[in-house]
């Protein structure tokens, strides 16, 4: 009796195997729609797509190493209200963690979704992925994973993935097992929740086993990631240890707020920076310039970043969409993860770990942080 199924892979064509899984989910009416990465009409780019017709799954590519924008945010659009239908959604672990946080903010309803995740070896920026896609076509995912599973560090993964210490999520309903496995030969999919188990049972697929080497491979991977993470936190902790340091790190910032738009954890319906609060009276600029001698425009650059940290650093899952979206290639992820490591530690909070864990600033205890207000 196993919680896993085995999808045979023919000649390294993992997409064929995955198509079988997703088509079965639709054909057996386990779900009425699937949401997963799919190759676009140009044949190369991959975008998350909502599919209802199992005959339209030809171009699926869930393991393509690219996530152009936060899939958590996209899935929250699809589940912002309770729906009449059930859906299966493929999410990277970081996107699932962000999605869990959005659920706490009532911007996502998880109950109607069968979450399928994977052992994640990272993603690339869209332009780097396109180079891979031009070279390998629909085999890009396999080409990437072959090298990634062998520990090839030369793959152009984004910095966020290099420092991600949560490459798996055991709270998702189903998970692809890639670590310690041979996806070129067979794909193992395991259920991690009751919903996952009943979904697999309905699909009636060939039973599989957890890859024996997985835990060891996972431990080694997490250790390596933690080392890189700590090196990053040390570097950015030092470079951004003063306001002037932060100012200089953000020196090409133009207040476009792309990082905020891309961030799945930025939850405000109306960002304060888009309100009259920041539509300063011309006299205000004149006064600032008078007080300091000069004033750089746009104003409120460092102020924006620190405010955003105050609002969402406890929810930051390190997905790196902020850096991906930045037109100036600023190290937004590094700066925010540095702040987040402090605020999350202060509250003993790991975002996305559990839907039952309340957001740290939405609760309080009678006796806590008593050292803050020496009575």
């Amino acid at each position: 009796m196993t919680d896993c199924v085995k999808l045979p892979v023919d000649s390294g064509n993992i997409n064929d195997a995955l198509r079988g899984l997703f088509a079965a989910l639709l054909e057996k009416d386990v779900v009425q729609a699937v949401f997963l990465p799919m190759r676009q009409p140009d044949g190369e780019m991959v975008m998350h797509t909502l599919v209802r017709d199992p005959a339209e799954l030809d171009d699926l590519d869930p393991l393509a190493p690219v996530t152009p924008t936060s899939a958590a945010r996209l899935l929250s659009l699809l589940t912002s209200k309770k729906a009449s239908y059930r859906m299966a959604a493929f999410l990277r672990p970081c996107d699932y963690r962000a999605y869990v946080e959005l659920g706490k903010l009532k911007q996502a309803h998880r109950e109607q979704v069968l979450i399928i995740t994977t052992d994640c070896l990272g993603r690339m920026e869209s332009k780097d992925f396109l180079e891979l896609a031009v070279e390998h076509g629909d085999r890009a995912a396999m080409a990437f994973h072959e090298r990634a599973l062998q520990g090839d560090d030369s793959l152009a993964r984004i910095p966020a993935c290099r420092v991600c210490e949560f490459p798996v999520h055991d709270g998702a309903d189903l998970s692809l097992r890639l670590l310690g496995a041979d996806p070129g030969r067979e794909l193992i999919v395991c259920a991690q929740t009751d919903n996952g188990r009943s979904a697999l049972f309905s699909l009636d697929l060939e039973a599989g086993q957890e890859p024996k080497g997985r835990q060891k491979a996972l431990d080694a991977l997490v250790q390596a990631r933690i080392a890189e993470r700590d090196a990053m936190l040390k570097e950015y902790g030092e470079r951004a240890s003063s306001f002037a340091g932060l100012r200089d790190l953000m020196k090409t910032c133009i207040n476009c707020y792309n990082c905020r738009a891309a961030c799945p954890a930025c939850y405000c319906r109306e960002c304060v920076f888009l309100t009259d609060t920041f539509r300063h009276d011309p006299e205000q600029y004149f006064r600032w310039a008078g007080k300091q001698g000069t004033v750089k425009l746009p104003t409120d650059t460092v102020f924006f970043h620190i405010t955003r940290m105050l609002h969402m650093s406890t929810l930051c899952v390190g997905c790196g969409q902020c850096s991906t979206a930045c037109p100036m290639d600023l190290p937004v992820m590094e700066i925010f993860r540095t702040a987040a490591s402090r605020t999350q530690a202060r509250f003993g909070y790991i975002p996305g770990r559990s839907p039952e864990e309340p957001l740290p600033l939405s609760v309080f205890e009678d006796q806590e942080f008593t050292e803050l207000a020496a009575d």
Partner: protein
Amino acid sequence: MSDQEPIIVAFVCNWCTFTAADLAGTSRHKYPPNVRLIRMMCSGMVDPTFVLKAFFEGADGVLIGGCHPGDCHYINGNYKARRRVALLKEILGQYGLEEDRLWLRWIGASEGNIFAETIREMTEKVKALGPTELRRERVA
């Protein structure tokens, strides 16, 4: 710049700390004029962004004054304030703002003398720290 008097911005709750400040005045308790009082209905309505703004505009110290835990006029505003101050201390601490520049104090309506003492103590401590980096550097 070096001998400048520090500016302390104090967000004080209407029911407790502000009333204590009033009592300090009528009781003729002496305290330095460095503090600028901003009356809030509750310490729980102090948005962390207000504190950030105060520092960015040149405040050398920020005080948040509220009712003692359990005595909040709105039941739990001060508990929320306490968590927000923990958050602020982490973020502002990352960028080098000294811990002793952001104070959270529970000062009840009858504690006029404690209000005056708190302002005296804070002014002295903050003066010793000198002006903040945000006063010396142009950071916008």
